């Protein structure tokens, strides 16, 4: 039994299951199981794809985002790379059974992972024309011979040049799918995984045109259908991939997280300054990134990193170099700050519905340097803006360039596995269930270290659609079944 995982970074269940002109995906849904899949906290590309591959939560991986604090100093954060993750991934588990894998673009995939098989780097690869971006090295040349320069990302995707951006993303994805099909046909594999990053870039670049509820929506834009067009492009490419398969293949189409419209940015450090928790020696005259601020660490108790979500750090005595919070005050202080974050409101004073998490409560363990709090402003409908110098707490534009969308906690999956009893819409699937499910369906043992469970056999924790409540699908089925019974 072979396993094929087609990753669609950022694919939203509302769109993947909502567009009715995706015949290849529909066919997979008809023969398999599908539904929403809950992502990790934070639902971010790094670490989400590796949480999926290892069935470990972010705390257990010690990776809390693209950048991680390497120690408790105030210095820069290090960008996570492929070597930051040491847990065994599903392809490592398969290698133990002598099986070969091909992985293409699974983040973080640079430096290229040395696996039993082939690997091609992800969008974190600096420059594929200069660097070796594959394992083994010579695969880079094979790919260059096939497609010329191999694109791993669209550099500078937060741009106003939308026409250029759209064409770049589509071209990148087409090239990547061409390579994927080439590798599938010309190299042996038992496990194949590809992640299409183009969809994430399309969402971030074009969401406002497609969503009339977006604050910056432009009606009748020529880019109105770009998001939809990209899903159709994916469906066609996936259709061509499916042509190459035999019946003895498990196919999983899956996203690492969903997508939702972005209502704006919440200037978290600006807010901390106003709350008196972050103290500056001099307030900047213009918008300044956090790393270049003149922070008075002797008086600062809290600061935060920006991004899709906020990683909030406390300045703790004996832990940070110039810490001020007494360790005995840590827990009550943290509870107070958590409550203050939860009470944050929009510019009109309406509560944002901000979610605040304590790492030790959501992770099985916390390796490396975990944030003291993780904050999803407005359930991630607001970005976290790290810079200071803004005239307001709430801004519309993103600090790192135009961005229309943020991630959502629920991604999507379609699992078509021969002989699987799992059919139809499934509720309660989690990202950490992916690796155990694939291993179990493929006839392999599930390592006890994995934190998820097989969606097929681990039905003990799988929610059968609500307690004493029914789903819309169940209700519709009943109405269909009783339609025309004159007595009711």
């Amino acid at each position, binding site marked *: 039994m072979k396993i094929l995982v087609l990753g669609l970074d950022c694919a939203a269940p509302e769109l993947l299951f909502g567009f009715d002109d995706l015949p290849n995906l*529909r066919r997979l*849904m008809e023969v398999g199981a599908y539904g929403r899949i809950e992502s990790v906290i934070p639902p971010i590309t790094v670490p989400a794809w590796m949480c999926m591959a290892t069935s470990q939560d972010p705390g257990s991986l010690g990776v809390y985002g693209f950048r991680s604090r390497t120690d408790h100093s105030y210095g820069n954060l290090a960008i996570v790379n492929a070597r930051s993750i040491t847990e065994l991934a599903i392809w490592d588990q398969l290698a133990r059974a002598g099986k070969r894998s091909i992985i293409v673009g699974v983040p973080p995939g640079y430096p290229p992972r040395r696996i039993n098989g082939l690997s091609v780097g992800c969008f974190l690869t600096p420059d594929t024309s200069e660097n070796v971006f594959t394992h083994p090295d010579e695969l880079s040349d094979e790919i260059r011979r096939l497609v010329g320069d191999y694109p791993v990302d669209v550099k500078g995707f937060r741009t106003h040049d939308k026409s250029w951006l759209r064409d770049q993303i589509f071209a990148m994805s087409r090239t990547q799918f061409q390579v994927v099909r080439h590798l599938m046909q010309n190299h042996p594999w038992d496990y194949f995984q590809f992640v299409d990053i183009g969809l994430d870039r399309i969402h971030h670049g074009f969401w406002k045109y497609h969503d009339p509820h977006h604050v910056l929506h432009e009606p009748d834009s020529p880019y109105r259908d770009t998001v939809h067009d990209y899903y159709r492009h994916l469906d066609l490419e996936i259709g061509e991939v499916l042509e190459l398969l035999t019946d003895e293949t498990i196919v999983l189409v899956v996203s690492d997280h969903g997508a939702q419209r972005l209502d704006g940015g919440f200037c978290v450090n600006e807010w901390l300054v106003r709350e008196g928790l972050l103290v500056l020696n001099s307030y900047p005259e213009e918008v300044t990134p956090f790393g270049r601020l003149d922070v008075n660490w002797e008086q600062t108790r809290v600061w935060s990193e920006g991004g899709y979500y906020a990683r909030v750090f406390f300045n703790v005595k004996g832990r940070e170099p110039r810490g001020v919070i007494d360790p005995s005050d840590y827990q009550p202080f943290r509870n107070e700050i958590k409550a203050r974050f939860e009470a944050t409101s929009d510019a009109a004073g309406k509560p944002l519905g901000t979610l605040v998490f304590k790492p030790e409560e959501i992770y099985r363990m916390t390796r490396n340097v975990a944030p003291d709090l993780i904050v999803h402003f407005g359930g991630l409908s607001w970005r976290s803006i790290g810079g200071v110098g803004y005239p307001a707490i709430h801004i519309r534009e993103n600090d790192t360039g135009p961005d229309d969308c943020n991630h959502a906690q629920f991604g999507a999956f379609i699992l078509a596995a021969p002989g699987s009893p799992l059919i139809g819409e499934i509720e309660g699937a989690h990202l950490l269930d992916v690796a155990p499910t694939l291993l179990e369906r493929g006839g392999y043992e599930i390592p006890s270290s994995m934190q998820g469970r097989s969606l097929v056999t681990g039905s003990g924790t799988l929610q059968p659609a609500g307690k004493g409540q029914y789903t819309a*699908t169940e209700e519709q*089925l009943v109405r*269909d079944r009783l339609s*025309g*019974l004159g007595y*009711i």
Partner: protein
Amino acid sequence: MPNLARLRETGGFARLITTTPAQTPVAWSTFATGCNPGGHGIFDFIRRNPRTYLPDLALNRYEQKNMFLPPRAVNLRRGTPVWELLGARDIGSTVLRCPCTYPPDALLGQMLSGMGVPDVRGGLGTSTFYTSNPSAVSRESESLVRLPRGKGETVATHLIGPRNLKTGSDLQMEIAILLDPVGRRVVIHSSGSPEKLEVPLQSWSDWLRVKFKHGLLQSVRGLVRFHLLSLEPELELYASPINFDPDLPLYPISAPPGFAGDLAWRIGPYHTTGMAEDTSGLNNERISEEAFLDQCANVWREREAMMTLALERFESGLFYVLFDTPDRIQHMFWRFREPDHPAHRGTPPGHRFAAVIEECYRHCDAVVGKVLPAVDDQTLLIVLSDHGFNSFRRGVHLNTWLHDRGFLALRDGVRPGDDAGDLLRHVDWQRTKAYALGLSGIFLNLEDREEQGIVSADESDTIKTAIARGLADLRDEERNGVRAIRGVRPREDVYHGPYLEEAPDLVVNFASGYRVSWSSSMGGVAGGHIEDNVKKWSGDHIIDPDLVSGVLFMNRPFRGDGARLLDLAPTITAALGVPKGPAMEGESLLP
């Protein structure tokens, strides 16, 4: 009714004790198996899922073993039907349209499935109303398709086929409606057969054979008829539920499988859905009384044609054919017999609709007349009905009564009425002891059975007694305080057998003129306790079975006193010289 009169003289006539409740699927299952409902598992049209508290059709279900096997239909009528017993003795049977025979039973002979066969949408029948009126809204059990109000001569639209369960979307087939106001008709162009179908104004069309493409290789075939309601000022066209095509039904509807198609080859296309007469179309006031009667006449003709054909081929054994149109006609035309019926709406006295039910009985007599030539002295002829009929003037909101007496609680802030919706959606299960669902039953919210059950086994008897006493004393204050309910019985008093556990905990026996309300049958909690029934569906039989006995005629003398539906299967086995089945509870009525 000369033929029935002759039977009464030569053999006999008796009132036939029906089942509790007096419902078609329950009664005919008892007829077929010789068991009380506890022995065959059909207690009502509607059962409920104790996990979700949702209702579902009780007659059948679908199961799918894995992704490579198609789903299959499973009959929920259990027990052993008499034709299986006879087949084991090499006695053949021909069974046409008996309720609860879907999918068909394994038998020696032929069977055409009856009530339980769905339309292609999976329900008992979903029609489609096409209209150019932009403010039209869909009514019960129908889909609505709005047509453009353009000046063009051709309107492009589609037929609505099966729902794709995975995606929730509908399969469609394109049709074009060619308008011909001068000719007072439309012509429907499609890829079906015939390619051009004429629909004259205020008439039914012939059958259109259609095909819905489903996936790459599959398609679903069906039969549909149209009725042109209006050409001007609005275009209004009515499409019947899409019946399974007897040649290639989505699920088997006959045994052997080719029997249904063979019948169609001989008598032409025919209605295959279990409840062929379009009561919803009339109840929704889409089609007229005339159009409904016209359709009923069609069903009669089809049934007589298949009966005649099958009788020609029949030599010995058991022959069964059901004519169920009288049931539908009585449901829909009862109001014309009673000037004070809430649904009578001032129809002038002597209107010809007032005689429709009598005409229907005479039609039944004529059918018997057509059979008599085939009945020789070696033949036992049994003519029977499964239940009688009565008026349906007032509906009782059982759930609202349960709510007001503290047995059923709604979530905070929700009051009985429209806000409470249907399907028990706002019921607070943590505080609810009992709920009504279906046509005659009340269920306890029992611990370890219902998903959020709170009633312990110890207290269930007390609650049942309290509900039974309270309901038996429910007075209709707007009707001089008459009792709406004659009695409420715990299931243990009514049923016994292997499927007892599936029965409602309490069975409600309504008084004459009363019935469970439209709302409560589907888990609604309406305002008030009793309401007028103003719908055209104005007669019913889901009341105290003592008030709606069936009838029984035979061409030989029989024991008529106390004859029960239960006794028919043993009567049939006795007539054919076979011992009755071990589970059969009745006794032969033959001397």
